[in-house]
């Protein structure tokens, strides 16, 4: 198979996001990640709903479908079931996935259909010019709620894990390397791979993630999880996470007799979601935010099970064409 480059995945359409929008970095990261998968370009399908982020498929030289608001998981499910050989990527925003599309989102996760969901979470409705979204921080003031929202936001990780997600990862739009790595691993995972990308909307919600991504805090406020590795972070790489009974705690290596062996080792493959959910809930200032692949467990995929049933029935049934069906059962001659 010919090796492809990021250029091969760049369509001829002019990219129309606002200058400075976090979406650009995500686009570039996908275009760089895909060639590493060593798959044919024609087997990639990008499917989105509606939103700034959902314009994404236009910019990818691949099969693309910019569908309707919130329904991309359903289209993706149909596409994958129709042709399980395709690599299906759903591009969605926090409004598209969690407001109007919340139901399809949780059902995709529970079924574990083998698609990749890239959730561009900018905590705002960008395309419709700045209303709060289901992930907006409580109390923010927007056009549609000038007195401040009274909505408790969703935590995408909690919701996903509550919906039986088998794969959950989180990245920031300012870390292209990590994005590429996770996109590759997400596609490697069999089942629904949910990748939350904290994405900056420069126009309507600028700097909402600055306590995570700003240069001066990012080392202390980001914990990049790796399977099998201890959970160490900090500007001096001397902070770690420990489990104290049921609670997570931050400790400093070298203080109070703590050494690397005391630090919790990340196991993304653990079936029990309890610890994954706890890790994913950590937030600055008390904790760093967990990035990387938080959960990555095996369970049967919806599509593979249907494929097995189809195979089994084709092999074991009394007939295998329509004429036989029409003639089966109670018939009579005139």
């Amino acid at each position, binding site marked *: 198979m010919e090796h492809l480059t990021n250029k091969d995945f760049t*369509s001829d*359409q002019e990219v129309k996001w606002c200058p400075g929008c976090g979406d650009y970095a995500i686009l570039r990261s996908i275009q760089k990640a895909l060639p590493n998968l060593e798959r*044919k*370009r*024609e*087997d990639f*399908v990008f*499917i989105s709903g*509606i939103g700034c982020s959902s314009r994404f*498929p*236009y910019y*990818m*030289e*691949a*099969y*693309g*479908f*910019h*569908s*309707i608001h919130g*329904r991309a*998981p*359903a*289209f*993706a*499910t*149909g*596409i*994958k*079931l*129709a*042709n399980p*050989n*395709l690599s299906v990527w759903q591009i969605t925003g926090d409004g598209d996935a969690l407001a109007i599309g919340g*139901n*399809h989102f949780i*059902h995709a996760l529970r079924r574990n259909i083998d698609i990749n969901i890239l959730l561009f979470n900018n905590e705002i409705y960008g395309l419709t010019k700045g209303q709060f979204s289901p992930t907006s921080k409580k109390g923010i003031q927007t056009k549609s709620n000038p007195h401040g929202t009274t909505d408790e936001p969703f935590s995408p990780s909690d919701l996903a894990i509550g919906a039986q997600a088998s794969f959950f990862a989180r990245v920031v739009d300012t870390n292209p390397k990590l994005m590429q790595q996770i996109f590759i691993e997400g596609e490697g995972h069999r089942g629904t791979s949910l990748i939350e990308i904290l994405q900056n909307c420069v126009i309507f919600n600028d700097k909402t993630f600055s306590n995570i991504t700003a240069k001066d805090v990012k080392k202390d406020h980001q914990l990049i999880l790796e399977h099998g590795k201890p959970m160490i972070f900090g500007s001096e790489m001397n902070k770690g996470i420990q489990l104290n009974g049921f609670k997570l705690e931050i400790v400093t290596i070298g203080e109070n007799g703590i050494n690397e062996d005391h630090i919790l080792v990340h196991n993304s493959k653990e079936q029990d979601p309890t610890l994954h959910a706890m890790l994913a809930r950590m937030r600055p200032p008390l904790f760093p935010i967990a990035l990387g692949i938080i959960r990555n467990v095996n369970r049967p995929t919806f599509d593979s099970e*249907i494929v097995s*049933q*189809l195979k*089994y*029935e*084709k092999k*074991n*049934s009394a*007939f*295998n*064409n*329509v*004429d036989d*069906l*029409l*003639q089966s*059962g*109670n*018939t*009579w*001659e*005139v």
Partner: protein
Amino acid sequence: MEGNNRKVIDLEKVVIKFAGDSGDGMQLTGTQFTDTSAILGNDLATFPDFPAEIRAPQGTVAGVSGFQIHIGRIDINTPGDIADVLVAMNPAALKANKNWIKKGGTIIVNIDSFTKKDLEKAGYENSPLEDNSFEGFNIIQAPITKLTRETLRNSGIEGKSIGRSKNMFALGIVYWMFNRPMTQTETFLKKKFSKRPEIVEANIKVMHAGYNFADTIEALTSSYTVLPASLRKGTYRNVMGNQALAWGFLAAAEKARKELFLGSYPITPASDILHELAKYKNLGVKTFQAEDEIAGICSAIGASFAGNLGITTTSGPGLSLKGEAIGLAVMTELPLVVVDVQRGGPSTGLPTKTEQSDLLQALFGRNGESPVVILASSTPANCFDWSYMASKITLEHNTPVILLSDGYLGNGAEPWKIKSTKDMPDILPNIAKEGKEYQPYLRDKKTLARKLAIPGTKGLEHRLGGLEKEHITGNVSYDPENHEKMCSIREEKIKRIAEIIPNQEVFGGKSADLLVIGWGGTYGSLYSAVDNLISEGESIALIHFNYIKPLPKNTASLLKKYNTIVVCELNSGQFANYLRMNFEGKVFKQYNKLQGLPFTTLELESHFRTLLKK
């Protein structure tokens, strides 16, 4: 059956209704009588009639389950207006059907269930058999419960099962009345209960007991035959509308060499199509029971995009939910069949009843100018042909199709002369091939259809979406002229389908005094009524539409020939209004019914007679 001197009367046709409590097995009884009659060569039509509740309280009118069958040696087109013979297993069954028996008809009642308690449950103060409620009717009071129990007294069968075989006693009586052999039912019972031979034996015994009871009693002064109809030669089977509709899709997919994908969410009365298709994984069918109707249709569009024949099935409220997604299929010009098995509306309305009130929703229930092809099936058996045709059009023209059926067709059944796939028209999906340059919105000159490029095809990568498309390239375009052009292309593409469909046919005189117009599920009753009036010498004709959008090319010229036109529908005039939109200047009278029930032939005839007199 020897030694009986009663006369055997030859009938042209007869309507029989089996009615009893939900637990009384009336559906099975009816089906058995149907199958036996079918094998004897009668033409026939049937209709089951369930209570709205899953298990309404036993013995009440709300809990009555019925099965009506119309058999004939002549052409049979409806399950019949009213019954010649009613089997009523309890007072509630009698009450529920009291207005639907022919004056002077025969009523077989299970007299054992006319106890005070049962009468009360049915809301009778006194037994209607004892006042003169049924004066003039031929009432056969059969002690069905008692005799069934007697028959099985020493069989070792337990009480509950004994109760359950009462229906076989009734069936035996009716078999005797119509001079039918019991062999078909015997074979059926042997197969069905193959693991419980004692049950087989008991049921057969009870059926024979019923037969012999009828043979013995004085009450039945005659028995009847209904000779075979002159059906066209061939192999026949009974099909229900929803089943036939499912099978038409199977045939179309095979013929088109496509995999069939159904994305659906259960809803009465459409669910049975999902149930039927779910059986055929052996034929490569993928059925996806989605989380809601929107996910159902969107998954089907996704599957079509990825190269399957994507379909979705629903009923009225579900169609409302699918409107937005249908619009997307219109814009992206993808194959998609949406089946709406109509029921009584508005809102949840009368979910178990029939109606034709989704036509305008199908035509216009989406934002923007959003034309789709609309077809309507008109008999239980031709549901097969119309789902086949819907598939053919959608795959060849890459444009969504809505197929309208209804609860009456979906649950109704009739004999069907089995077709062979080799006799069905070819289906040639309109797909771009690898290696050629691909412009997503380049069109066939004649049909205006664009070509699909299926993901996985090398070099044809492209992007679709719901924003307006630039002519030829398919790029997003906000250009004013392009939008106007694309809107008119989308409309024109549908119009051109009129070029490939057959001309509309007329039944009756080409310029009769009265033209009756119908569409969809009312065919049987309209045809019967018009046929009867024609044989009475009236100047009347029927045009019944299956192609709704586009209308057949010759429609305008046909309509010109008639001065008085009446459009008959189970709604308040939707098709009439559609015709007014299309044939400005013509005047359309209306005859409408909105009762959750089909037209009766009688009411139609009487209305047409009035119109003819004017």
